[in-house]
């Protein structure tokens, strides 16, 4: 009888311990399962965002000239089309020319751990190559203004000189060959083109063109000044070689025989054909006001605010600004001002300078979103 009672108590304790252990074990299993599910979820999100990053990286490094040989329907893995991201994410991209200048970019990312694939995702985007040849069609006059313009006494605006390179350039810079960069079409450019509501004060200035003053000129509505061809004000900063602001001076910068295109203020060396930056034509974008203190630059300068240029500054290419204050500027190319301003000096409508600025601008050998739908559902 005594032996039976002792065994019964022990059995009850063992049962209780077993119940507790089972419950604890269940909790541990549940926690492990939840942890694994959460990790899978994180891996899925990491792969998805990694694929999107892959597409963005490819768009950022896009070089249209390197893809010139890709035909419609053909696919290619572009240069720098693979990489890694933190979190064991590897990515690759592939581009396909859908037709003409329309491209499909496909990015894929995979998350691995210990050599085992944990998640994979894709991202797709459609983009269009920038039609560079169309961008400079808005420049049909040496100076185009959407607001009141004051041209200072002694200023000279010349839109009648025969096409040809500026004095410092080699004649070979503007060859007549069809395969070489071409200047814009001979539009018989005007000296000054004004919006219908804009006023012009040009006492003592010399303006030549065909006609000297065109009012109203084409594409001088306020909305037209907010864009450069197909590139609107949102697209330009993303493409820019330099984001500028405040005060800066133009000065070419080279490291050895290589142009340092990342140096602030480096806007090429338009007046020194032997300089490594002679063929560097940057797109410089200022989201506010900009003051240029000195030097010579080339390329495309887009200023969303007021552009102030100190006497003696020279520029070869295209300038877009909301307002301009340039009492003694030397410009070879063309200028578009949304709200007008004050300018003096020498302005020459230069088709060769415009053509070089646009066709040799590396920033424009890119793609842009041609429609609202840039990103496609990933399949």
């Amino acid at each position, binding site marked *: *009888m005594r032996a039976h009672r002792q065994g*019964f*108590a022990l059995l*009850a*304790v063992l*049962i*209780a311990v077993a*119940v*507790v252990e*089972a*419950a604890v074990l*269940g*909790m541990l299993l*549940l*926690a492990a*399962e*939840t942890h694994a*599910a*959460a990790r899978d*979820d994180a891996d*899925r999100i990491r792969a*998805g965002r990694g694929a999107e990053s892959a597409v963005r990286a490819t768009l950022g490094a896009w070089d249209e000239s390197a893809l010139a040989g890709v035909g*419609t*329907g053909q696919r290619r893995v572009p240069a720098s089309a693979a990489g890694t991201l933190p979190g064991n994410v590897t990515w690759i991209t592939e581009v*396909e*020319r*859908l*037709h*003409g200048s*329309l491209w*499909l970019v496909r990015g894929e990312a995979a998350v691995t751990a210990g050599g085992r694939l944990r998640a994979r995702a894709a991202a*797709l985007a*459609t983009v269009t190559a920038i039609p560079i040849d169309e961008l400079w069609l808005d420049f049909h006059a040496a100076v185009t203004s959407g607001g009141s313009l004051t041209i200072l006494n002694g200023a000279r605006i010349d839109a009648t000189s025969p096409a040809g390179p500026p004095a410092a350039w080699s004649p070979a810079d503007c060859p007549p060959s069809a395969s070489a960069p071409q200047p814009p079409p001979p539009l018989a450019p005007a000296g000054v083109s004004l919006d219908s509501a804009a006023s012009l004060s040009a006492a003592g200035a010399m303006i030549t063109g065909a006609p000297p003053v065109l009012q109203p000129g084409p594409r001088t509505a*306020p909305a037209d*000044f*907010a864009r450069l061809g197909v590139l609107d*004000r*949102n697209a*330009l*900063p*993303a493409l820019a070689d330099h984001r500028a602001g405040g005060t800066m001076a133009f000065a070419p910068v080279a490291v050895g025989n290589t142009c340092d295109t990342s140096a602030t203020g480096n806007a090429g060396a338009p007046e020194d054909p032997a300089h490594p930056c002679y063929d560097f034509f940057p797109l410089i*974008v200022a*989201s*506010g006001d900009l003051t240029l203190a000195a030097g010579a630059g080339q390329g495309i300068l887009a200023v*969303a*605010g007021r552009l102030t240029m100190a006497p003696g500054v020279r520029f070869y290419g295209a300038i877009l*600004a*909301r307002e301009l204050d340039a009492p003694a500027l030397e410009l070879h190319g063309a200028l578009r001002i*949304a*709200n007008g301003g004050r300018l003096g000096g020498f302005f020459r409508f230069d088709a060769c300078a415009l053509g070089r600025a646009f066709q040799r601008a590396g920033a424009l050998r890119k793609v842009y979103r*041609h*429609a*609202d*739908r*840039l*990103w*496609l*559902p*990933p*399949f």
Partner: protein
Amino acid sequence: MCRSDHAGRSLVELLIAMLALAIVTTAALLTFGAQSRLARTAGDLAEASSARRTSAAILDRELRTVTAGADPIMVAADSAGLRAYRGMAIVCGRGGGAVHVRYRGLRAPDAAKDSILRLSRAGAGEQALPLSSAVRISTHACVAAPGEDVLALVPDSSHLPGDVLLVFERGAYALSNRALRYRRGASGRQPLTAEVFLDDSSGVTLLAPGETAGVSLRLMAGDVSRPGPGTPPRTLRIPLLNLRAPLDSLEAP
């Protein structure tokens, strides 16, 4: 040790043993009950967590590439009606009154429930078209990449090689009756998750009304049969990729 000395001892010992057994048994039952409740709560949490993850994954996939202004998306308090894209086709040829495409998608196109959206190309906007048939074919004109099929879609319409067609069905995701549900067209809402969400505390809202910059998904799980606040609410934000303007935009001149 006479017999009379033991009189009544067995009864006392038995009572003590029964009392001890009762205490141990009660403790074991209480422990078992507590552990059962704990396990059930843990299971509920796991189920709610799983439902949240499933909801987030599905809606992130469906909404992230929604294009503001181009995709008709209707976000109500508890639902989001949208074009649910199921595949993408690239036109690669034509013949026999059909357009030949390379197709990749979640499933094969189904003329009974799918339409196609032709993406914009130069000089033309997007265009939604009905899909009459979709048949798998073999043609030398179209070289499918891994993971792609070659299909003949009808009608031919005016598609050109290189056109991108998105295959979609009209659908609506809803957080109703305690679950994430999907309704295709006019059919009934089918649950995609377990019924764990609290209807009054869960919903879908736009992050920036009028601009559709993103969608916010608020999920709160709980058991309506048991009092209590339920699990802490979780909010998932799904920023849309296809915004009209990037954040670092220039001022308008």
